[in-house]
Structures are given as structure tokens and as C-alpha cells.
């Protein structure tokens, strides 16, 4: 059995759903094994995770003025 049955490209191309439904498929198990020993793919997935975190953390607050304009646009008032 060769050590690298699955290529980096294949690993990066494949999504093992974080929600879990396909996490235990043979393919995903193979991918997890590959990730344990491949720095390159580890960095890839870490940077994908970071990408998602960046956009999660980057939030904006609705300005008070925009809140007021919204209610008046809708003809509602807040008391």
C-alpha cells in the first residue's frame, strides 16, 4: 500500500461537510489520514478556516440614524 494514495489536489478539492453527514465516509477518513501527515494540506485548510473566520468577525452595527430612517420609511414609530 503506497503512503500517499490520495493526492493533495484531491484532498483540497473535496469537502467533508462540517455538519457531519459525510464525515465518516471512506473518502473522508482517507482525507483525515492524509491531513495528519501533510503540512501543505493542513495549511490549506487552516487558511480556509481563517478565511471564514475573517468574514464572520467582520461585522457592522446599524447606525442609530439608519434605524430611525427605517422606521420612518415603513411608517412605523417606536415608543
Amino acid at each position: 500500500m503506497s503512503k500517499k494514495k490520495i493526492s493533495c489536489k484531491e484532498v483540497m478539492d473535496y469537502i467533508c461537510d462540517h455538519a457531519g453527514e459525510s464525515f465518516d465516509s471512506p473518502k473522508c477518513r482517507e482525507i483525515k489520514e492524509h491531513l495528519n501527515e501533510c503540512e501543505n494540506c493542513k495549511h490549506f485548510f487552516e487558511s480556509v478556516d481563517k478565511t471564514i473566520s475573517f468574514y464572520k468577525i467582520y461585522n457592522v452595527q446599524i447606525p442609530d440614524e439608519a434605524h430611525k430612517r427605517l422606521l420612518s420609511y415603513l411608517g412605523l414609530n417606536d415608543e
Partner: protein
Amino acid sequence: MTETELIKKAQEGDRKALTELVKRYEQTIYNFSFKVCRDREKAEHTMQETFMSMVKSIKQFSGRSKFSTWLYTIVSNHCLMMARAQKNKYHASLDDENSLIDESHIADWKVTPEKVTENNELKKILDEAIEKLPYDYRIVFILRDVEGLSTAETGKIVGLSVPAVKSRLHRARAFLRNELDKKLRNE
């Protein structure tokens, strides 16, 4: 008052209940709109149109889906309408999957995600990267990965099957990662 009670009252024409619903969701909708269009003015406009649609059609909300899912559907449609109105903007093509992933030299990024709250240059990098992504990919990425909705819920909102959502998501992630990599690999 529970959300179900509020919705019922709002459907019967209670303005107070309607106002309360708007207040419960305005921050979510504003933030979502901003995350899609990366512009405060457009985000406000999209939010206004979204709640106007909500007010006009709340009687049609059947309760079969979550109220938040229903609102996300409305706001996503308004974002797409906005996108069509400015279609001369350049977006990358994500048809060629092979160009998305270059599996050689993957760099380790030193910058941590928390930095984004204090670093305006990083914000600019994030804005510019996602602005190149076509809107239909952007919306899938934001609903599923950023807002944390399920793949099935995301599919329902944008009218795609679960495998189609996954494929778009994968391309969007890879595209954004590559764009950020150009700027962050040496940080």
C-alpha cells in the same frame, strides 16, 4: 412575547408587533446586507426594501419555515436585484475549478482573524476580495459559512439543491482563500 405571537399579531395588522419584529431583525438584516454588498449606503437601502417587503407580505408567511429563513430569502432577493442593477461591475469567473486551487506551495498565514476588528487595512483586503466574487456565490458563502445556516436552509433560500450549494460554497471558499493569500502569505 414569543416570536410566533408577535407574527400572528403583526399579521392581524398590529403596528406595535410589526415594529417589534423590525427591531428584532434590523441588526441581522443590516449586517447581512453589508456583508453582501460591502457598502453602508447600499446596505441601508437593501434593508429598507427588505422590511418594506416584509410589511407588505407578512400575511403570506405561513409558518412552515422559520421566520428568519423567510427574511433571509427576501433580503437575498433584494441583494440580487441590487446586483443586477450594477451588472457592469467585474466579477471573476468560477467556472474553471482547476484554476481555483494551486496545490503547490501553500503558505501559512500569520495574521489571526481577531485582528480584523482593529485593522482597517485588513478590512479593505477582505472587502476587495469578496467584491470580485459573483453575487450568487457571495450569498451562498455568507448564508452558510458566515451566518452559519445549514446547507439545506441555504439551498431553500437561494433555490438550489444541497449538492449545488456545496459546489458553490467550495468554489467561493477556494476563491476567497486564494485572493486573501495574495495579500496575507507574507504577513
